[in-house]
């Protein structure tokens, strides 16, 4: 019984805390409504499409493929990204490069973003630094799933 009374006190305390939050926040909301600037804000919300937080330096956003100076892809089709990809969303096909030093270049490089989980393993695995996830492009919603299957041209940008 004593235990239950203890609970009751905590229950009342809980609603006092939420009520305090409500009234204090409401006070600052009302101040804002009258364009009174205060240091403290009523809400911690960032109004996303209007206000944007800067993207962190190491944030993993949409992929891009790096290029040599002459514009050819840096990728050598070692398929390590294909191997390491946990959601198997990368598909690469190799073609023979006329330059025997390069040997392989990608004739197809497809990333299916509908499957991608943005783990960044492909970036880690790449021995040539040919794939990066630093485009800061995070708004990837599309009306058509097909638009989310990115091919070589799109990835090279």
């Amino acid at each position, binding site marked *: 019984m004593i235990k239950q009374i203890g609970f009751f006190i905590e229950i009342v305390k809980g609603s006092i805390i*939420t*009520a305090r939050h409500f009234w204090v*926040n409401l006070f600052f909301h009302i101040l804002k409504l009258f364009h009174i600037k205060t240091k403290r804000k*009523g*809400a911690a*919300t960032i109004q996303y499409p209007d206000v944007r937080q800067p993207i962190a330096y190491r944030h993993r956003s949409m992929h891009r493929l790096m290029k040599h100076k002459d514009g050819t892809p840096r990728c050598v089709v070692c398929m390590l990204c294909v191997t390491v990809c946990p959601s198997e969303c990368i598909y690469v096909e190799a073609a023979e490069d006329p330059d025997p030093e390069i040997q392989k270049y990608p004739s197809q490089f497809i990333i299916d973003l509908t499957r991608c989980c943005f783990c960044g393993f492909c970036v880690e695995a790449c021995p040539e630094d040919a794939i990066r996830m630093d485009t800061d492009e995070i708004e990837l919603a599309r009306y058509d799933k097909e638009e989310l299957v990115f091919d070589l041209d799109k990835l090279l940008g």
Partner: protein
Amino acid sequence: MIEPIDILISFIKVIMAMMWFLILALYLTWLERKESAVMQDRVGANRANIFGFRIIGIFQPFADAIKMFFKEDFTPKFSHKFLHNLAPFLSFYFVLVTIATIPFAGDIKIGEKVIKLQVLDLNIGILFVLAMLSLSVYGVLLSGWASNSRWTLLGGLRGAAQLVSYEVALGLSLVGLVMVYPSLKFSAIVESQGALLFGFLPKWGIVLQPLGFIVFFLAAMAESERVPFDLPEAESEIVGYFTEYSGLKWGLYMFTDFMKVLIIACLLTTLFFGGYQVPWLAADGFHFPWGGEWLMSNGLVVALQVLIFNLKVFFFCWLQILIRWTYPRFRYDQLMDFGWKLLIPLCLINIAITGIVMSFIK
């Protein structure tokens, strides 16, 4: 001897009471979202707009309603079609009719006519409300059974058990009140609460029946099937008795929830907080206990009463939403323990104490 003008007045009263009830319930959905957001340091629904005017998201209920209209109304193949479709309307209807008995203000005099601001002043007002709230259990039970899905069935069973259990406490908690204001009539109860105790204290239910108030409040919260008593729904466990509903019918269930919140606020106000009564305000104006007087016209008094009634109702809506967003859900055995082992004994104690005190005073 019913005059046509009486029929017209009744009709207008019905329409106005319904409008008040439905529009407030609609805005309660918005209020709940906003209040919970402000409590949790968020902003809440604020993006619905008409021609770019957001006005702190005040159009959100309409956006929700439009969305629900255009959603697919899906009836599962395996369900009992007729009962499945009927259930939400049953729930909705039985809650809707309860508003008829709530008095909004004292009598208004227009010329010779005296009009009560109450749709239906039943002799057994309290019993009527309790009966209607009990009948709304059928909506829960039917939807649970007719959907023919195990989640809805579990939800329906839980709902039925919970509502039936708490109805006992709900009814018993009012017995003391009925003893104090010897009437089952809402208008009479509110009228009695206008009197003064010891010459200065308003004779409100909360003063005379504090224990009854607590028990009634808790039992009524449970009756509204909202957190922390939302076991029939329990989104995180079984989704609940309306799992198989979509679109407008699902919306109707949601709406019924908010109507219940509103009707509970109305009942709390009417029974325990003096209804439309303002302390020391009589039909002709204020008579302060320290001897002052402030006389007012009948119209002004009624307007003040309606305002104060609404304020009280809003307060209880706010309180219920606060509680809903503060506490986690009961476990099922805790819920049953709470109802049967705590609330009902408290009711009985309340009745006994009330009886003893009353017999001494006589």
